[in-house]
């Protein structure tokens, strides 16, 4: 076994970590403030500064400590919580309720999220139209912007979108961290194919009915965003399904298994992102020379992407969401971020630095708006 690869540690000295943080510091400042910082509103100024410095501190710590997932998860969970807060607050301000009305559907005012994308592909191809009551351009969460953001993130990050960009993933990621050890350890990893079945089901039913069936009947995150007003048996059943799936797949199962069960077993978007992992420039690699086959990475993986056989062969499956949890658990830096085409075990730090810059930049800018909005609201509430 070649022990030389252990020397390539992702940890950096204080000065070097600071130097690596500087470009992120400048770029996030430009993007979060829009290049023209306006400090006239004290609440907003505090919110922007806390968000900006907080994010850059976490990015610095990723470089300084060499840990990735530990600091990524902080923003990821905050992103999920603040986005739900932002959505709910907006809806209560506009509609006085978390539920949408017939008028919102008639006026095509329903906010669009990336989970609709799997259902809009077939109808878009065949009818040249989008089967969703949202707005194409302008307004809150318009369809064009959301699709462009998702498309770019998916091409560059692949399933990394599920750990660095998805504003729902933070929910089950957060709950999966509540217990130190899992209560349920043995789960068949064949369940990870389930999202493909869900994808097929919702894509076909949506095409046949011209209704985004996943949003209408399945999406667990309706419980923390918006749902149809309960006015009859059908809408009551839907609300029951949303709440049950949220309670089961997003809260209970992640707590007892320490796995991201909603993302792994249900999300149809995850299935598409999984396929996109085949083309993205960034991958996870296993340096078989440094690996001692302790399989800590297999146990820590929240997405069922690693198997003992795969580790022995030096392969990571396409289900990997590049969260970095396996890297944090590996004391020998054997599993590492890599670049497609670059042999495993080489250019470890270069690949990690490049991937971190790209993925963190996306997460920082994408999540900054709801975080700033939430902090702003909290500031106004307290003072």
């Amino acid at each position, binding site marked *: 076994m070649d022990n030389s690869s252990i020397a390539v540690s992702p940890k950096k000295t204080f000065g070097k970590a600071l130097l690596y943080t500087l470009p992120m510091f400048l*770029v996030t400042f*430009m*993007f979060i403030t829009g290049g023209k910082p306006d400090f006239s509103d004290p609440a907003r100024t505090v919110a922007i500064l806390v968000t900006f410095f907080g994010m850059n501190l976490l990015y610095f710590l990723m470089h300084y400590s060499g840990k990735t997932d530990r600091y990524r998860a902080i923003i990821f969970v905050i992103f999920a919580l603040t986005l739900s807060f932002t959505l709910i607050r907006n809806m209560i301000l506009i509609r006085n309720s978390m539920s949408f*009305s*017939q*008028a919102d*559907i*008639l*006026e*095509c005012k329903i906010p669009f999220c990336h989970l609709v994308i799997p259902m809009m592909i*077939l*109808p*878009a*191809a*065949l*009818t*040249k*139209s*989008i*089967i*969703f*009551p*949202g*707005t*194409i*351009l302008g307004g809150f969460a*318009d*369809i*064009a*912007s959301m*699709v*462009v*953001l998702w498309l*770019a993130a998916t*091409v*560059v990050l692949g399933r990394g979108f599920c750990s660095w960009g998805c504003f729902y993933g933070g929910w089950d990621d957060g709950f999966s961290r509540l217990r130190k050890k899992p209560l349920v350890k043995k789960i068949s990893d064949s369940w990870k194919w389930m999202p493909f079945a869900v994808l097929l089901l919702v894509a076909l039913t949506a*095409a*046949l009915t*011209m209704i985004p069936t996943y949003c209408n009947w399945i999406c667990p995150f309706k419980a923390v965003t918006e749902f149809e007003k309960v006015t009859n048996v059908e809408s009551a059943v839907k609300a029951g399904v949303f709440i049950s799936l949220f309670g089961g797949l997003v809260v209970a199962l992640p707590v007892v298994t320490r796995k991201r069960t909603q993302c792994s077993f249900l999300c149809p978007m995850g299935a598409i992102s999984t396929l996109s992992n085949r083309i*993205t*420039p*960034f991958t996870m690699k296993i340096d078989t020379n440094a690996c001692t086959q302790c399989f800590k990475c297999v146990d820590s993986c929240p997405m069922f992407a690693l198997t003992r056989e795969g580790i022995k062969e030096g392969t990571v499956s396409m289900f990997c969401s590049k969260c970095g949890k396996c890297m944090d658990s590996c004391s020998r830096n054997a599993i590492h971020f890599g*670049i*497609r*085409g*670059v*042999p495993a075990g080489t250019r470890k730090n270069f*690949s990690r630095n*490049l*991937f971190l*810059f*790209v993925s963190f*930049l*996306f997460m920082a*800018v994408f999540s900054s708006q709801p975080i700033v909005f939430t902090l702003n609201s909290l500031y106004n509430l307290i003072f």
Partner: protein
Amino acid sequence: MNKIKTTAGITWAFLGLILMIILFPGLSGFSKSFGTLPFMKINPRYSGGEVAFTQSAGACTLAVHKPVFNGLVRDRNTGFVQVDWRGKIPDQIRDTIDYDNDNVPDFVIAVDTKKPASDCCPLSGRVTGLGISSRTSFGWAARINLRKTP
């Protein structure tokens, strides 16, 4: 061969980096361009379809949309026609609509915007009843269910 693969991989990764850097400043432009693609329009089942004709009565304008029967590959047997009242809508609305412009009234729709309550009286075999009826930001909108053949 390995060197070519490595160079190609690193180039691809840097292209990803460039895309991420230009993504947010250019989002508005990218979205506008994307929004002009032929499939980027809301399906008539959600938008209500194109407005076929309008009639004005004082400060209120009645807009009757084209009937919507859109299916995935061909028209369906059932659909709807959307009727909007825009502007200053009265407390009581009662309109007789000939949505297909064949000079034969198809239905009478009555809306009490105060209660609120809506009723539709079919005059044609193609009209099956009232679908959605709701106050909107522009006034009032209703969808009347239709079938293609009486």
